[in-house]
C-alpha cells in the first residue's frame, strides 16, 4: 500500500514536471550557436574571422504585460534597471533587470519622444522632437522641468529646436543632438532655467577635389542652386563617467565615431568605421561600442582599434541575434550588450563569451599599466586565437616592458605595431652594436688596410693592371658605354640631352634595359624593404600588375608628351623623348638601393633619413625630366611649363577616351553574347 502511494506521488511529481516543462514559456533561452560570424581587423587592415565574441542571451519583448511599440531609445542603469522610451505609445516604461514592470510615466506629456537619458539619481531627461523640448522627470516620474529653445542670440534666431538625443553630465549640463542643426551639439546648463552654453563638437565640412573643380566651373547662379555643403549633424551620443562625450555621425568616414574632450576636440580616429552608425555606448574597460542601424555591433578599444564586429541584418530569416533596425545600444555592468531594435520592438541582450572575458580582463590590466599580469589573460586569448591582433599588440608591449625585445619584435610584426616594433628594434640594434662594435671596427680597419696594401702594391708593382685592362675593355663596349651614360646624364642633364639628341649616346636597347632595371628595383623595394617603411603586407605579391602599371604610365606620358611637342614646334623625336625620360629616372636606379638598405637598419626615429632620401631623389628626377623636355625640344622655360600642363591635360583626355571606348565595347560584346544565349534559350 505504502509502495503504491509512493508510486502515485512519484507519477504525480513527474506529471507536474512534464507540464511545467512543456507549458511554461520561458524567455526563449535557446542554447544556440550564433547566426553570425565575428570579425576583427589587424594592423594591415585585413579582416580576420575570430571566435564568437558575444552570444545572443535573451530577448526582452515585453515588460510585465506591457508590450512596446516602436521604441527609439533606452537607458540602462548600473543596477540593471531599464528605462525604455516607448515612442509609439508616447511614454517611458521602467523595468527591473528581469523584465518586471516598475512603472510607466510621461503619458500625456510626450509627443514624439526620441531620446532618453537617466542619471544614477534616476532623474530622467527625455528629448521630444515634436514638442520641441527636453522634459525632465524626477525619480517618481513627475515632470519637474521643461527646457525649450534657448533664447540666447548665440543659438541663432532662425534655428529651430528639434531635440533627438540627450546626455547629461554630473553637473546637470545637457548635451542635446538636434535635428537639422548643423552647428553641432547644443549644450545647455540647468542654471537659471536653462542657459545656452554654446555649440559643441561641430563636424567639419569636407569638399572632394571633384566638388572643388565643379564649383570652380559653375557660374554664381548655378552655384547658388547647388546643395549647400553643410557639416553633418551627429546621429547619436554617449557620455562616460569622466564626462567625455562620444558621438556617431553617418557618412563621416573616419569621423563616424568621435571622442570629444571638454574643449570639443576629437581624440579618436578609428581606421575601421561604419557608414551608418545608429548609436554609441561606453564599456567598462575603456572600450567603446558602436551599433549600426543594420545590426552590426562594433567594439573598439581605447585607441580606436577595432576589437570585434559581429551581428547583422535579418533578411526575413527571423534568427535570434540578427536585427532589423537598431536604434540604441547600452552596456551592462556585467559586459552584456543591450541592443534596441525599433522594428522588432525588442531589446536583444548579448553575453560575452569566455574568449571575450579573457580579452576584457587583459584590456583592464593593460589600461592600468599592469603589463606583466596582463600576459596571463593575453596568453589565453592567443591560445584560443593566435592571430588576434589586439592581443599580439598588447603582448608586444608587455614583452617590451619586460625587456624581451626579440619577443616584442615578433609580436609587433604580427600586429603591424610600428611604435613597439621600432622601439624593440632600437634596443636590439643597440645591443648588437654594443656587442659587435669592436669586431665591426676591426673588420672595417682590416678591409681598409687591405685596400691600402693592394693600392700600394699596385703603385709599386702594378698588380692590378690585368683586371684594369679587362675593365677598360668592358667599359669600351658600346652598350656598356650607353648604360654608363646614365651617370653622366644625372650630373650634366643639359649636355646629357645634347648627347642623346645629337650624338646618339644612348640607344633604345640601353633605355629598355634601364627600364627593366627600374621595374626590378621598384619591385624589390616594394616587397622586400624594411618593415618600418613597407606599404604592402608581408606575403602578398602582385608583380605583374606592378610592372604593367609602370610601363603603361610611361608609354602614356611619353606618348602624350610627344603628341603635344610635335604640334608645338618641339624638335624632339619620339625616340629621344622616350630615352631622355628613362635616363631622367637614373637617380631612382642609383639611390633606391641605398634607401632600401637604410630602411633595414633605421627605427621610427631615424625614418627621416629614408623620407628625406626619397624626397631628394624625387626632386632630382623632376629636375632631370624638366630639363629633358626643355632641351630635347629646344624650348624656353615658359614653353616647357606650358607643354607639361598640356601633356597632363592630354593624359586626362586619353584616359577619358579609353574609358568611353571600353564602355561602348562592353555594350557591343554584351549584345553579341546575348544573341546566342537567346537562341540557345529559344531552342532548348
Amino acid at each position, binding site marked *: *500500500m*505504502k509502495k503504491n*502511494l*509512493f508510486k502515485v506521488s512519484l507519477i504525480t*511529481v513527474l506529471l*507536474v*514536471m*512534464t*507540464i511545467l*516543462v*512543456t*507549458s511554461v*514559456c*520561458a524567455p*526563449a*533561452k*535557446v*542554447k*544556440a*550557436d550564433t*547566426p553570425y*560570424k565575428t*570579425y576583427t581587423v589587424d594592423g594591415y587592415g585585413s*579582416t*580576420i574571422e575570430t*571566435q*564568437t565574441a558575444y*552570444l*545572443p542571451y535573451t530577448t526582452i*519583448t515585453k515588460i510585465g504585460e506591457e508590450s512596446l511599440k516602436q521604441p527609439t531609445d533606452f537607458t540602462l542603469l548600473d543596477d540593471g534597471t531599464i528605462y525604455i522610451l516607448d515612442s509609439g505609445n508616447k511614454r517611458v516604461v521602467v523595468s527591473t533587470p528581469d523584465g518586471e514592470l516598475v512603472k510607466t510615466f510621461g503619458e500625456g506629456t510626450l509627443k514624439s519622444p526620441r531620446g532618453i537619458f537617466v542619471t544614477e539619481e534616476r532623474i530622467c531627461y527625455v528629448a521630444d522632437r515634436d514638442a520641441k523640448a527636453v522634459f525632465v522627470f524626477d525619480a517618481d516620474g513627475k515632470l519637474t522641468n521643461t527646457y525649450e529653445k534657448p533664447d540666447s542670440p548665440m543659438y541663432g534666431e532662425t534655428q529651430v529646436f528639434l531635440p533627438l538625443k540627450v546626455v547629461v553630465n554630473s553637473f546637470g549640463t545637457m548635451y542635446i543632438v538636434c535635428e537639422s542643426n548643423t552647428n553641432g551639439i547644443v549644450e545647455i546648463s540647468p542654471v537659471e532655467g536653462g542657459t545656452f552654453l554654446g555649440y559643441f563638437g561641430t563636424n567639419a565640412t569636407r569638399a572632394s577635389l571633384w566638388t572643388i573643380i565643379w564649383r570652380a566651373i559653375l557660374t554664381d547662379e548655378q552655384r547658388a542652386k547647388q546643395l549647400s555643403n553643410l557639416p553633418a549633424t551627429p546621429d547619436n551620443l554617449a557620455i562616460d563617467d569622466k564626462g567625455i562625450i562620444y558621438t556617431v555621425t553617418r557618412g563621416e568616414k573616419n569621423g563616424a565615431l568621435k571622442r570629444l574632450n571638454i574643449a570639443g576636440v576629437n581624440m579618436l580616429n578609428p581606421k575601421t568605421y561604419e557608414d551608418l552608425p545608429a548609436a554609441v555606448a561606453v564599456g567598462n574597460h575603456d572600450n567603446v561600442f558602436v551599433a549600426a542601424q543594420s545590426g*552590426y555591433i562594433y567594439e573598439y578599444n581605447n585607441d580606436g582599434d577595432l576589437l570585434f*564586429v559581429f*551581428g*547583422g541584418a535579418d*533578411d*526575413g*530569416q*527571423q*534568427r*535570434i541575434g*540578427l536585427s532589423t533596425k537598431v536604434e540604441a545600444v547600452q552596456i551592462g555592468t556585467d559586459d552584456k550588450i543591450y541592443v534596441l531594435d525599433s522594428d522588432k520592438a525588442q531589446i536583444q541582450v548579448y553575453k560575452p*563569451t*569566455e*574568449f571575450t572575458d579573457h580579452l576584457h580582463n587583459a584590456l583592464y590590466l593593460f589600461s592600468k599599466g599592469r603589463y606583466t599580469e596582463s600576459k596571463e589573460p593575453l596568453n589565453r586569448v*592567443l*591560445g*584560443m*586565437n*593566435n*592571430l588576434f591582433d589586439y592581443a599580439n599588440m598588447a603582448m608586444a608591449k608587455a614583452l617590451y616592458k619586460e625587456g624581451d625585445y626579440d619577443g616584442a619584435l615578433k609580436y609587433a610584426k*604580427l600586429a603591424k605595431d610600428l611604435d613597439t616594433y621600432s622601439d624593440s628594434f632600437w634596443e636590439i640594434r643597440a645591443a648588437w652594436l654594443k656587442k659587435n662594435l669592436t669586431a665591426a671596427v676591426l673588420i672595417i680597419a682590416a678591409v681598409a688596410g687591405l685596400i691600402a696594401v693592394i693600392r700600394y702594391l699596385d703603385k709599386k708593382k702594378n698588380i692590378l693592371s690585368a683586371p684594369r685592362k679587362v675593365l677598360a675593355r668592358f667599359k669600351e663596349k658600346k652598350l656598356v658605354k650607353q648604360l654608363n651614360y646614365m651617370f653622366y646624364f644625372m650630373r650634366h642633364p643639359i649636355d646629357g640631352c645634347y648627347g642623346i639628341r645629337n650624338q646618339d649616346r644612348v640607344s633604345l636597347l640601353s633605355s629598355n634595359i634601364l627600364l627593366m632595371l627600374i621595374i626590378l628595383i621598384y*619591385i624589390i623595394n616594394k*616587397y622586400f624593404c624594411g618593415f618600418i617603411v613597407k606599404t604592402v603586407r608581408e*606575403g*602578398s605579391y602582385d608583380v605583374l600588375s606592378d610592372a604593367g602599371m609602370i610601363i603603361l604610365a610611361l608609354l602614356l606620358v611619353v606618348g602624350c608628351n610627344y603628341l603635344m611637342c610635335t604640334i608645338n614646334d618641339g624638335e624632339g623625336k619620339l625616340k629621344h623623348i622616350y630615352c631622355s625620360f628613362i635616363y631622367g629616372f637614373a637617380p631612382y636606379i642609383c639611390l633606391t638601393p641605398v634607401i632600401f638598405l637604410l630602411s633595414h637598419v633605421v627605427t621610427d626615429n631615424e625614418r627621416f633619413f629614408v623620407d628625406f632620401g626619397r624626397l631628394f631623389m624625387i626632386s632630382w628626377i623632376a629636375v632631370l625630366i624638366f630639363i629633358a623636355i626643355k632641351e630635347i625640344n629646344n624650348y624656353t622655360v615658359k614653353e616647357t611649363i606650358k607643354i607639361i600642363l598640356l601633356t597632363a591635360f592630354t593624359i586626362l583626355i586619353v584616359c577619358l577616351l579609353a574609358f568611353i571606348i571600353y564602355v561602348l565595347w562592353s555594350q557591343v560584346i*554584351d549584345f553579341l*553574347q*546575348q544573341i546566342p544565349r537567346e537562341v540557345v*534559350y529559344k531552342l*532548348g
Partner: protein
Amino acid sequence: MGKTVKRITALLVMLCLAASLFAGMNGKTPGILAEENKTEPAYKDVAGNDRYSLKVDEKTLQLVVTDKVTGAYMESFTSYDDGLANKTWWGAMNSAVVLTLISGNDDTKQANTFNDNVTKKVTLNKDGFSAVIYWTTYKVGLTLEVTLTQEGLVVRVPDESIKEDGDKYKIGTISLYPYMGTSYLDSKPGYILVPDGNGALIYLDNKEGRYSAGYSAPIYGQDIGFDESKVETLLWDRYKIVNSAEQVLAPVFGIAHTEDRIAYLAVVEDGAMRASIECLPNGVNIDYNRAFAKFVERKLYTQPTSNNSTAGSLHLTESDRSHSDLQVRYIFLSEDEANYAGMANAYRNYLTARGILNAPDTSYNTRVDFLGSDRKEWVIGTSRVVMTTVDDIKDIYADLEKRGVTDLFTVYKGWQKGGVNNFPIKNFKPDPGIGTANKLADLINTSKEKGISIYLYDDALRINPKEYNVTFNTVKKVNKRKFEEETYRSVYEKFNWITPLRTAEVILGLEKKMLKKDIDSIAVAGITSNLFSYTYSGKNYTRYDTADSYLKTVEELDKDAKLCLEQPFAYLWGHMEAFLDMPLYTSSYIVEDTFVPFLSIVFKGVMPVYSEYVNFEANKQEFFLKLVETGTFPSFYITKESSSELIYTNSNNIYSSQYDSYSETIEAYAKELAAIAERTEGAIVKSHELLDSNITKVTYSNGVTIYINYGENEAAADGYTIAPMSYIING
C-alpha cells in the same frame, strides 16, 4: 503515517490539476473547445492494428488515429473553429491534400480538397483506403493511398497517378494531410520536433502572435540549381557575416501532445529530395499548430538573357515536373514514448531495421585532424605553405601516446598535391611539402596497426578554376548559367562544382590508386552535404538524379574502402563508419523554443559521431558539456606550424590550430570523455529530459544516467547536487 502520505498525495494531485488548468488557461484561449463550433464528420472505422485504430470520413477524407489503450487521438483536421480563419484557410485546414498551382508567372494559387470542385473515388481496403482525387476546374489529379501498418500510418501518392491534363494549370507543390496532429493555440500542450541542425522544439503554447513566419526549410539543403542571384548582405560589402542556416539532414518532423501522451514521428520516405519541412506554430497566419512536408513538383526560375544582371530576364516554369512517388510514414508513439527521445528511438529503430546505421565499431576515439598544406600568393603564381608534414604527424602521435592518448581518429586534409584547396584529387600524389607517397602510405599503414585510422580527405564536389579547366564537366544551373561558389577569400575567390558523373569517375579512380598502396580509408565531403538540380550538355537533371548518382558512387566506394562522411544527408547514412561534424546547435530561429539533441540520440550507440572542431568554440566549457550530453566525440583541427602562417591563404579562417597550444586540451578532453564513453559503451539513450531550463538528464539503456548543469549556479535534481557548468554520472 499512511494518512500523511495520503494527504501529500491529495495535495500533489490538486497541485497537478491546478497546474494543468493553469497550462490550459495560459492566455486568451478557451481551454475547453466550444461545443457549437465542432464540425461533425461521419467517421467510419477502416483499419486497426494492435495499438491504434484508423477512422476516416469518406466524404472529406479526414482521419483520426486513436490509441486503443489510452484513448488519446490525433486528427488530420481542425475540429474547432475559432471563427477567425477565412474560407481559403478553413478549406486548407480541413483538406487531405493541398496543392499550389502554377499558372504563368504566378505560383501562389491554392487548391484543396475542401473548397474546390473535386471528384473523389474512395476505395476501402483492409488496411486503409485509396482515393482517386481530381480537380475538375484545374484539370489536375492524383491518387491518395492511406495504409495503417503496425507502427503507424503510411500516406502515399504514386508518381504515375499525378495528372496535369490542362495547359493552364501545372502543379507547383503538394502537401498531404498538412494538419495531421494539429491543435488550437495551447489546447494540447506538447511540441513540434523541428529537424533544424541536431534538433529543436517549438512548444505548443500560446505564441500570442509573436511570430510572422514558422520554420520552413528544404530537406537536404537549398538547391543551388535554382538559387537566383540571392543578394547576400555582406559586411563592408566584402565579408560574409551571417552564417548559413543548418541544413535538414534527416527527412523527419514530429508532433507530441505530452499531456495526451500521444505523438508521431513523420519520416518522408519518397520525394524527400524535393520537399520542404514546414513547422508552423499558432500565430503564423492562423491560430493552429501544424507540421508537414511540402513536396515540390515544379518551380519557377529566372532565365537571364544577358550578362548584365540588371538587363533582361524571363520567369519560366520548369518544363517537366519531378518524377517520384510521394510518401510520408507516420510512426505513432504512446505514453512513455510520446516525446522527442521516443521519436529519436523510433527513428533509430526505423533505420536499423532497414540495415542503415550499422557501424562495426562505436568505441571512443578523439578525432585529431591535420591540415597538410595550402597556398598563398607569391611573386608569380602561388607558393606552398606547409602546415603539417607526415613526419610531424608521427611526432604528434608519439607525443600523444606519451600523454596516454592512444584512441585516435584522424582526417588528413590538404594532403594532396597543391594543398587543401586543390580539387578534384585525381591521383594519390601527396604535396611534395608534406612527404612522398610512400611515406604517407607508410604512416597510414603503421598507424592502422596501432589502431589509429587515418582518413584522407577528399571534397569530391568542388573544382578549383585557377588550377583546372572548368569548361567541361562542371555544373550549370537550371538557367544554363555556370554555377560559381564564392569563397569570400583572396587566393581562390571561386569554386565550381563538378557534375555527379564526373565525381564518380574521379573519386573511384582515386580509390583504385589508393587501394594499390593498401590505403582504404577516405573521408568524403562536398557531395555528402549538397544536392542540386543542374543542366549539362542540354539535358536537365533533378535532385533525384543527383542523389541517385551520389548514392551509387558512395555504394561503389564503400565496397572496398572504409568511409567517413562529412555532415551527410540521411540517404547516405548506410555507407559510413563515422559521422563527421555533427552540429550541436540549431540555426537560432526565433520560432524555436529549445535545442534537443535529436540526431545525437538517434546515433548514440550505433554510429560514432564526431563534433565540429573544438578550436573555434568561444565557450569551451559549455561545448564540453554539450559533448557529454550528446555522447559526441570531440574533434580538433591541428597543425604543427602556427596558424599565423595561414593568414594569406584561403584557410585564414583557421585562426587557431597549433599543436603546442592544444596538446594539453586534447589530453584533458580525451581522458574525461573516454571515461564517460566507457560507461555508456554500446548503450543507447533511453530518455532525455530537460528538467528545467538549465539541467538536462540523460538516461542510457544500461542504467547509466548523466545530469548536466548548464547554469551559473549549483543546482539539485533527483537528490543530486550538480556544480555550475558541470555534470555528474551515475549507475
